[in-house]
């Protein structure tokens, strides 16, 4: 039963990620990526990683992709229009390299997988996946945890400062200029970063 579910979700995942890179319209790509993330979250649930699976939906599908959609709509990006020999050559090279990487991976997998030794400390048996992850996070991985909080702080400040642009440079002139940002105080435009923790 579970392998069948896994195969179904894996099929959805592969098809939607292919459509992400193949579709012309950026909004459609973003929506297919949301679908890919949700099916990946379902696979995580099948692997008994409930906390990670739902955090995947909350963070990736619910925050990061919303930010992507905001930027796509704010910049009013249309469909990709590409033509010419250079483009074809570059594309062919890209697909070739991807296929080479995949062949390499298949070769390595074909040799058989032998998972290595388990981590030194066994996690105490408490109820629920979340409690176990939490115990681990706050004991052995406390220092990286505090570091990620600083990373997020830096990212927040950085994103606001960068997206503000220079005070004297107004919006870019020309026909393709982005629409005026929605009314509201300056730093809270649509490019405001999400605190994803």
């Amino acid at each position, binding site marked *: 039963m579970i*392998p069948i579910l896994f195969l179904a979700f894996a099929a959805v*995942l*592969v098809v939607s*990620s292919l459509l*992400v*890179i193949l579709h012309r319209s*950026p909004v459609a*790509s*973003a929506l297919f*990526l949301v679908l*890919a993330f949700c099916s*990946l979250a379902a*696979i*995580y649930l099948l*692997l008994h*990683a409930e*906390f990670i699976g739902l955090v*995947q939906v909350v*963070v*990736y599908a619910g925050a*990061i992709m919303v*930010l*992507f959609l905001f*930027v796509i709509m*704010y910049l009013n*990006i249309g469909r*990709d229009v*590409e033509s010419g020999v250079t483009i074809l050559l*570059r594309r062919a090279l*890209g697909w070739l*390299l*991807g*296929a080479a*990487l*995949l062949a390499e*991976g298949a070769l390595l997998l074909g040799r058989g*997988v032998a*998972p290595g030794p388990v*981590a030194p400390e066994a*996690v105490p048996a408490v109820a629920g*996946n979340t409690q176990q*992850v939490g115990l*681990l996070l706050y004991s052995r*991985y406390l220092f990286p945890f505090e570091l*990620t909080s600083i990373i*997020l702080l830096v*990212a927040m400040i950085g*994103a606001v400062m*960068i*997206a503000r*642009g220079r005070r004297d440079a107004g*919006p*870019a002139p020309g026909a393709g*200029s*982005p629409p005026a940002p929605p009314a509201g105080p300056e730093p809270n435009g649509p*490019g405001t*970063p*999400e605190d*994803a*923790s």
Partner: protein
Amino acid sequence: MIPLSWLLALSALLFCIGVVGVLVRRNALIIFMSIELMLNAANLAFVSFARHLGSLDGQVFVFFVMTVAAAEVAVGLAIIVNLFRLRETVFVDEINLLKG
């Protein structure tokens, strides 16, 4: 129990799709999305090993990867927005002022 080789094959496939996306597309946002695909492929590998080795360290790593990916997306999109304001384009091959 899902065989480890299936999970790793899926992860490798996803990673390669991401690589192709970065190499083939011109739109900076699609390139960014392909990078997110690659990060997720790595996450899948972490979680599958966590399941098969019976250790939760893999899931904690995924937690950190997600956090860092979120931070990276925020800053990266801010840069793209700023770039668009200056150059009026998001296509990476048109941002070539420094080309010799």
